[in-house]
């Protein structure tokens, strides 16, 4: 430390530095969009989501936040995201349930059921890199954006429901108000402003990690480095951009 530094100056600098680092650090968690200047450039991004299965406690806040944020019908037949509970019994049988999509949490497991292990798996649109839903749409109403998100143009969708049939993950539904297809958009309106998707924002255990592929500063990069990564139904060759860490083979 230089001798001519005053105690006040030293403290000021020492406090400012980590504060600045923190500010920029948080910015990096959202991949720095908030700090970026100028108009949004879709081609500069490639969004993805990580799901750390071990962390999910099945509270259902994510599914609830999603419904609120995206004006999804509250009835339990329309979900952009939902949580499944897997209960693996001693005899190897697997029970799966998702009452109300997991919103409001899960009831206790039935008395006397010999469950060996139980865990929760949040599900959502996998924003596939090779999306079968986009392939089948006869009018191109559903499309892949440059930043890798699959969106639906509800003013163009003819409501043929072919995309719903083509999605291997059950991630799409028809909104009865518009009679057009609807699905998770990674909260596109939020992420292009540098914010997190609503489900990620509310998750109390940081099960959901939002970030960008191919960007080392992204928290997703860290998750990929530290855990074994799986995707749902890899045999479908859809190349999902929702990545699961430590996922059981039972999960489909």
């Amino acid at each position, binding site marked *: 430390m230089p001798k001519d530094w005053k105690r006040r100056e030293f403290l000021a600098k020492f406090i400012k530095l980590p504060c600045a680092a923190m500010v920029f650090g948080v910015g990096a968690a959202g991949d720095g969009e908030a700090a970026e200047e100028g108009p949004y450039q879709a081609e500069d991004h490639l969004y993805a989501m990580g799901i750390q299965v071990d962390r999910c406690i099945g509270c259902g806040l994510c599914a609830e936040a999603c419904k609120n944020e995206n004006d999804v019908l509250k*009835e*339990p*037949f*329309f*979900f952009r995201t*939902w949580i*499944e509970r897997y209960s693996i019994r001693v005899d190897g049988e*697997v*029970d*799966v*349930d*998702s009452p109300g*999509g997991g919103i409001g949490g899960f009831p206790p497991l039935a008395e006397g059921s010999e469950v060996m292990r139980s865990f929760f798996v949040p*599900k959502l649109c996998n924003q596939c890199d090779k999306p*079968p839903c986009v*392939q*089948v*749409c*006869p*009018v*191109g109403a559903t499309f892949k954006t440059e930043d890798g998100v699959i969106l639906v143009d509800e003013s*163009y*969708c*003819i*409501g*043929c*429901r*072919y995309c*719903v*049939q*083509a*999605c*291997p*993950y*059950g*991630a*799409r*539904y*028809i909104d*009865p*108000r*518009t*009679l*057009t297809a609807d699905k998770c958009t990674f909260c596109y309106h939020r992420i292009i402003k540098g914010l997190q998707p609503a489900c990620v924002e509310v998750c109390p255990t940081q099960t959901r990690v939002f970030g960008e592929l191919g960007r080392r500063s992204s928290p997703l990069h860290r998750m990929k480095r530290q855990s074994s990564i799986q995707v749902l139904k890899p045999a*479908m060759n859809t190349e999902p951009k929702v990545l699961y860490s430590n996922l059981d083979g039972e999960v*489909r």
Partner: protein
Amino acid sequence: MSELLEHLEANLQQVTGYIYPNEIELHWSLLVVIYPYVTGLVAGAFILASLVEVFKVKEVASTYRLALLTALAFLIAAPLPLLAHLGHPERSFQIFLTPHLRSAMAMFGFVYIWYLMLVLLLEIWFEYRADMVRWSSERRGVMKLLYWVLSLGSRDLSEKAVRFDRKAVYAITLVGIPSAFLLHGYVGFIFGSIKANPWWSSVLMPIVFLFSAIVSGIALVLLLHYVTTMFRRVKPDMACFNKLASFLMYALIIDLSLETLDFIHRMYESEESIEILAELVITKLFISLTIVQLLLGTIVPIVLLAIGRFSRIPDEFKRVVFFIAALLVQVGIFSTRWNVVIGGQLFSKSLRGLTVFKMQLGGIEGLFMGIALLILPFVLLWILVKLLPPWDKQEAN
């Protein structure tokens, strides 16, 4: 919307195992069952007509025009169930204006237009041209004008012109056969290419669709031939009935063989989905697949047709046997479409549970609408037969 929610609530109560929450609503219902059924009848009836034209099957020549008109009547009706089923039918023109070329469904418009305009209408026009010219000179008033318009102002009845008509019909038929194969093979591809659905995803799907289409088309022409012969009080042409019955029987045997191959292949490969599909077939589809499609719709008709063809029973009785067989075939093929379309949505893509399908009576997707859409092509056919009588030629002969 409240009706839909009530419907979904009721469905939810009957789900067994686990299904994804978005799967409680079945997306393709009765109208989408009717669409491949009707399209199949078009392709089948046309292929039968083509047999007459290209392979010169003399015995069934008397059904040629009837088969063509049947194909046209059903083709006109074919897009209606699809249109009615869309959430936004008013936007359907976008399929033509901005088709997404990688989508199988986007090709529908083009396949349809090609088949309607370039194959069926053209073939029927050349087939009827000389007659329409004659009718427009024989008739008076509106009908005269109508036939003149339909013949597009053509007046030439010279031998050369009539010979050209025959050549044109022959050439169009040659293009028409692969087109008919395309039309229905394509419908099969719409289902067969959905990898997410193990019940649909099969390379055999277009082929199975095609042969079941041929079966249903032949059976329909046989039924119509029977009914029209009866109402016209003409002497039944037994050679024609026998030939139609033979064709129907052979087509049924091929169809059954393909379905059996599909079944054995699935069982033998025994992929991840086999358990849920087995459960589906044993429980939800037992009646519509095993009883109606396989037993009543395929095996019983094959036996009946074989009895009709190879046993010595009186002709009158024989025709009734053929009629019953053809009727059963129609029920069976409708069931086939049902089992594909509805069956493919009764199990979850999580492969862990089954859901139910409850048909509604009223509404766009309801039973009454379905019945109306199935009656409509017969009304259209009646009009076409009145306008372009398919029997004039023979009676003149």
